[in-house]
C-alpha cells in the first residue's frame, strides 16, 4: 500500500535556539541513511528539513516537525506557533527575507530557505495565519511510482 506509514516520528523545535538548530534534520538524515534510502533523496530531505527547521528557529516561537516514511515517499509537516507569513508569494521569492539584522549577521536569513525547500521537494504546500503560525507540508518521493 503506497499510503501506509512504515515509520513516523515527531520532533519539537524551539524558536531562537541556535545551539540545537539542525539536530532534527541530522536525526532524520541518519534514519533515512540507516534504512537504505537512496543517497540523492537523503540529500534532498536533509536540505529541505534543515531549512524548515531553521525557519522555525529564526522566525517562530516553537514548532513541531512530523516525519513520516511510506513505501514511496517521505512526508515532512512543520507546524509552528509564531508571527506567521504576511505575503506568501513574496516569501517564496529568492533573496527575500524578514530576518532581523542580528540574524543576518549570524549568517541566517539569506532569503533562500523556502525557495530551497521547494526546489528539493516533490510536493510543497504552505499556509499561514499572521499572528498565529505557519504550516508547511512537503513530500519527497523515494521510489518511482
Amino acid at each position, binding site marked *: 500500500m503506497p499510503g501506509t506509514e512504515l515509520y513516523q516520528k515527531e520532533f519539537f523545535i524551539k524558536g531562537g535556539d541556535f545551539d540545537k538548530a539542525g539536530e532534527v534534520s541530522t536525526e532524520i538524515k541518519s534514519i533515512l541513511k540507516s534504512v537504505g534510502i537512496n*543517497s540523492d533523496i537523503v540529500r534532498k530531505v536533509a536540505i529541505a528539513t534543515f531549512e524548515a527547521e531553521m525557519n522555525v528557529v529564526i522566525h517562530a516561537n516553537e514548532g513541531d516537525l512530523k516525519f513520516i516514511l511510506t513505501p514511496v515517499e517521505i512526508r515532512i509537516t512543520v507546524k509552528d506557533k509564531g508571527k506567521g507569513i504576511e505575503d506568501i508569494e513574496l516569501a517564496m521569492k529568492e533573496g527575500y527575507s524578514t530576518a532581523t539584522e542580528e540574524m543576518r549577521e549570524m549568517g541566517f536569513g539569506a532569503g533562500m530557505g523556502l525557495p530551497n525547500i521547494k526546489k528539493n521537494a516533490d510536493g510543497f504546500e504552505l499556509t499561514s495565519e499572521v499572528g498565529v503560525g505557519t504550516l508547511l507540508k512537503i513530500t519527497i518521493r523515494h521510489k518511482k511510482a
Partner: protein
Amino acid sequence: MDFIHSLEIDQDKCCGKLHCMRVCPTHAIRVKNGKAVIDPVLCIDCGDCILACPQQAIKSITDSMRDLDKFKFNVAIPSPTLFGQFQMDIKPNDIVEGLITIGFDAVHEISVESELINMAIRDYLDEYKGPLPLISSACPVVIRLIQVAYPNMVKQIIPIQPPREIAAREVKKHYAKETGLKESDIGVIYLTPCPSKMIAIKQPAEDVKSHLDLAIGISEIYNPLFSAITKGKQNNNKVNKQGSLHQSRTSLSWALTGGQSVSIKPSRFLTVAQMPNIIRIFDDIEKGKIRDIEFLECYACLGGCVGGSLTVEDTFVARSKIQNLIASMEDEGEKVLEDARRKYKKGDYYISQQLEPRKNPDVLVSIEEQIIKMKIRENLVRKLPGIDCGLCGAPTCSAFAGDVSNGKAKVEDCVLLSAERLKELQDEYNTDKK
C-alpha cells in the same frame, strides 16, 4: 569486494581495553571476548586506533627495504613531508644523497607533478557546475570516509589523481628507457608519512591498479637514512645521484594544512583537519549548511601530512621546517613551473574510474526490513542506559542496538541488563584476581 587495510591487531598484545573502539570515527571496531576486531567494510585506515591503543597492539603494516629486492632498479618518490623530518642543516640534497646511499637507484621529487595537478584542479574548479563544495582528494582517509559514511558526497570529490601517481607513471617509462630494463623491473616506491597512502597504493579507492609498486613508511627508513646522511656529510661524499631535485613551493606546501588552497587559489576555501572536525563539517555540508565554499581541503591528521603516524618529527616542528624551506627557496620555483606549463595536457590527470560509495552488506535489504530493524533498535535504545560505557563491546549504546538488530550481538551483552555478563567480564579482565 574485499577491502585490505594497513592496520593489524596483535591478538596476543590486545587486552580489550576499548580505547581503540572509542576513538574509531566510523565505529568499525568491536571488542569480542576481550579482543578488538575491525570491520573491514567500515575501516578507513585513519590510524586513530593505533595512537589510542595503550598496549601498542595495533600496528600499521607497510613495505620494507627488503622488498626492493623484487626489482632490478628502484626509484624512490619521497612524500614532501620527508624534507621536514631532519634538522635544518640537513638540506634536501643531503636527503636525496642519503636515499641513494641506503639502496635506492634514483630519487624523484614530485615538484613538476604537483604543479601539473595544481593546474588540473584549477581547470576542474573552473568548469565544474555541480553541488559545492568540491572536496580535495589528497587525503585517502577522507575519500574513504566519504565512501563509507557520506555516499551522496562522493560526486563532490575532485576526480584527479595525486601527484605521486602521475610521477610514478612517467618515472617508470623514463627509467625503463634509460636502463633498457622492462617496466616491470623498475620499482617505484613511495616514502609515505601515513599508512593510508600505502592502502591508496595497494587498493586505490577507485578500484584500479596504482602506478606505484611499494610504500615504505618514513619511520621505517628514518634511522638508516639519518646515519647515511650524517656519514655522508662527514666524509663530504659526492654520491653519483640520479634523478632531479628541483623543489617547488607547491609540492612542499601540500604537506601542510591549507597548502593546497594557497597554491590552487580557489575563490572561497575551507581547511579542516582531524576526524571529529571533518565529520562535523561533512554533516553540515550534507544538510546544505555550507554552500558558499568552493574548495574544501581535509586532512585526517593534525597539521596535514606532516602529522602522519609514520613520520618521526613532531608535527609542529616539521611544519615550521617545511615553511622555512619554502621561505628560503632561492627562486620562485620558476623552472619547475615552466616545465609544468610545457608538459600540461588538459584532461590527462583524471582518475581512470569513477569513485563509488562502499556498499555495507547490513543495509542491502529492503526498506521494509530495515524499518523492522530500526524499530528493534529504537525499542532497545530506550531500555539501554545511554552511558556508552562500551562494556558490551560496542562503542555506544546506539551502535550496540544496531548490532543487536543486525544479529551481531545479544541484548544480554549489556552489563546493566545482565548480571551474568558482568560476571563474565570480571573473569575476562581478571578483576577479582587483582
